[in-house]
């Protein structure tokens, strides 16, 4: 029984017509709680101190931001601890660090995106988007630099190659990866085979991409002879890299589908495979979709395995079963590392960054697509 209220004895009537007590004391539940202005206040103070500290050791925006952030994290943690106690202090620290981590993660993203946009945007035009590099020689680039005419040649052939090779590797990896994950979660019952697969899938994540490429090359050399460089070989190499990501993320997502749902379906006389296909997978689809997207993003930017499997082409090739193919990463790679004209590298560099921008946009679109798909099937409630 707290003595802090002036309330009279409780009354039994259901209608609370009594006016509220006139002189209410400060809310004892709010005791030891920082006022609302505390956070902005500490932030402002940190900014001032941060500015002071950074001017001491050579002012720059970066040091200002860093000092301010550090001072803010420490100060708000300490003040919260002093006023609200250690538990709230830890909570405040965790909150600060979580926010700081997010901002920190944005820095490289912003920097990379800025770099790509700054260097890539000038090169994006319809000529670039819809033409290949066929017939573009150093002389052409030299001419466009010397005459100040627009850069010729584009990434169309590489876009086609990227789309086709990625499509084929997805077509190979997603069924294999998802089925494997299904085996692990729904059928394997943690038996020796399931444990072996889980373990080796993890090991598979560590295969360096170039080794995957060499492996695919060797495999097809055995099957088709030494000249076998083509899109499908690259797709197989990428699949080796993609499958473990698909398996792992799908497995994790399937595991957290509650057993209750499986039981509900079984009890309705639904076959196991239909339960998996119609109940378990739709429930986990959002996570699976983002796992697959991640896996695609993981391989769509690969260079090394493409070079040894699909060669390099300047012209458009839509046949993954014959002739060489370029992809955006190999295109970027060679435009940067061995520019078309060594003496005038700017056109190549511009094409490389424009292609990088293109690739990022492609993955973004893919990502959006996956989200859309996931949204259509995902559990209708939840966050």
């Amino acid at each position, binding site marked *: 029984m707290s003595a802090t209220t002036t309330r009279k004895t409780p009354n039994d009537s259901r209608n609370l017509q009594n006016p509220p007590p006139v002189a209410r004391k400060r809310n004892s539940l709010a005791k030891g709680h920082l006022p609302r202005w505390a956070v902005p206040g500490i932030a402002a103070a940190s900014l001032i101190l941060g500015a002071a500290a950074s001017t001491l050791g050579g002012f720059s925006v970066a040091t200002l931001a860093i000092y301010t952030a550090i001072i803010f994290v420490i100060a708000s943690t300490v003040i919260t601890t002093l006023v609200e106690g250690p538990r709230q202090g830890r909570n405040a620290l965790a909150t600060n660090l979580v926010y700081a981590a997010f901002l920190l993660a944005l820095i490289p*993203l912003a920097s990379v995106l800025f770099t790509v946009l700054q260097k890539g945007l000038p090169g994006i035009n319809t000529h670039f988007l819809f033409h290949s590099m066929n017939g573009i020689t150093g002389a052409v680039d030299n001419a466009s630099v010397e005459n100040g005419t627009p850069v010729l040649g584009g990434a169309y052939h590489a876009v086609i190659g990227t789309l086709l090779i990625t499509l084929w590797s997805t077509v190979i990896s997603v069924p294999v990866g998802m089925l494997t994950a299904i085996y692990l979660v729904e059928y394997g019952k943690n038996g020796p085979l399931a444990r072996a697969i889980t373990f080796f899938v*993890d090991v598979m994540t560590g295969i360096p991409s170039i080794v995957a490429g060499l492996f695919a090359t060797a495999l097809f050399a055995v099957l088709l002879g030494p000249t076998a460089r083509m899109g499908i070989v690259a797709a197989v190499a990428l699949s080796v890299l993609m499958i473990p990501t698909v398996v792992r993320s799908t497995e994790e997502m399937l595991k957290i589908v509650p057993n209750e749902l499986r039981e509900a379906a079984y009890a309705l006389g639904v076959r196991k495979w239909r339960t998996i296909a119609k109940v378990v997978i739709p429930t986990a689809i959002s996570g699976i979709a983002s*796992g697959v997207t991640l896996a695609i993003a993981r391989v769509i*930017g690969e260079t090394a395995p493409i070079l040894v499997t699909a060669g390099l082409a300047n012209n458009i090739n839509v046949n993954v079963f014959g002739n060489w193919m370029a992809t955006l990463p190999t295109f970027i790679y060679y435009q*940067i590392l061995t520019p078309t004209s060594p003496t005038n590298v700017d056109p190549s560099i511009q094409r490389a960054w424009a292609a990088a921008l293109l690739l990022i946009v492609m993955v973004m679109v893919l990502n959006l697509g996956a989200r859309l798909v996931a949204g259509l099937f995902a559990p209708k409630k939840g966050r």
Partner: protein
Amino acid sequence: MTTNALRRNGSKGQAGDKVFSGAALGAGILILATLLAVAIFLFIQALPTFTADPTLITGGEGFASYIFPIVVGTVIAAAIALLIATPVGIAVALFISHYAPRKLAAGLGYVIDLLAAIPSVIYGAWGYLVLAPALVPTFQWLAANLGFIPLFAGPASQTGKTILTAGIVLAVMVLPIITSLSREIFLQTPKLHEEAALALGATRWEMITMSVLPFARPGIISAVMLGLGRALGETMAVALVLSTGGLIPSLIKSGNQTIAAEIALNFPEAFGLRLAELIAAGLVLFVITLVVNLIARAIIARHKEFSGAN
């Protein structure tokens, strides 16, 4: 014995189950077979290295002394990457799942996922064009003030192309892998358990440590392992960012080398025994991954009884 009525039409539709479970099993076995094939391929191609005269191996002192510094370099780079990416990745995932305003969260997750969309060549180019020069002052400061620690022994690199820079680039590349997988799992934490913690008077952070993190623990470890795989196997970004060299403890001088980059840098010109050496290096990387995963498995298994699933 009378015929069992339940058995009569029992097989109807059972084919679907058989096909499906067969396909699932087949897929699993296919993966094992592929991996076995990769291992055999690596082993056969690497074999000349192990039988060759040690003086013929690069460095002239046998394969072990050739590979040892690169293994250490690989481990250093991957360790830097994971030391940065794991806490940041988990924190970012938590930010998106439990801190950010709900309406923003999905969009923010998408933004971070974008990091995964950037090809490694671009990370490499960004690393040596933007990041490395930007880090030079920091390296110089570290050399001047913390130079007594061998890790920061000076003189600092003029170009900023050091193993630390490579590690940071790898961390950025690994981050979205850890974040997006962890985030999905954090979001799946049963509401019941979160509410149980909150109703006991837990703060948000306490709720996270009581219900979210324990639930997500195996998933986090998997995510980190996936990230580790990427960090270990990444070729092009390291090849472009790192100014390679022999094994040195300092993280802010040029030096060190990773297996994947060693392969990528030397493969084009490699021939005969040198090629076998590089493939053997790939085999070693394979073994490293195997060992690390064994350890991770052991950690997960130790807590199996208390796993969050079900």
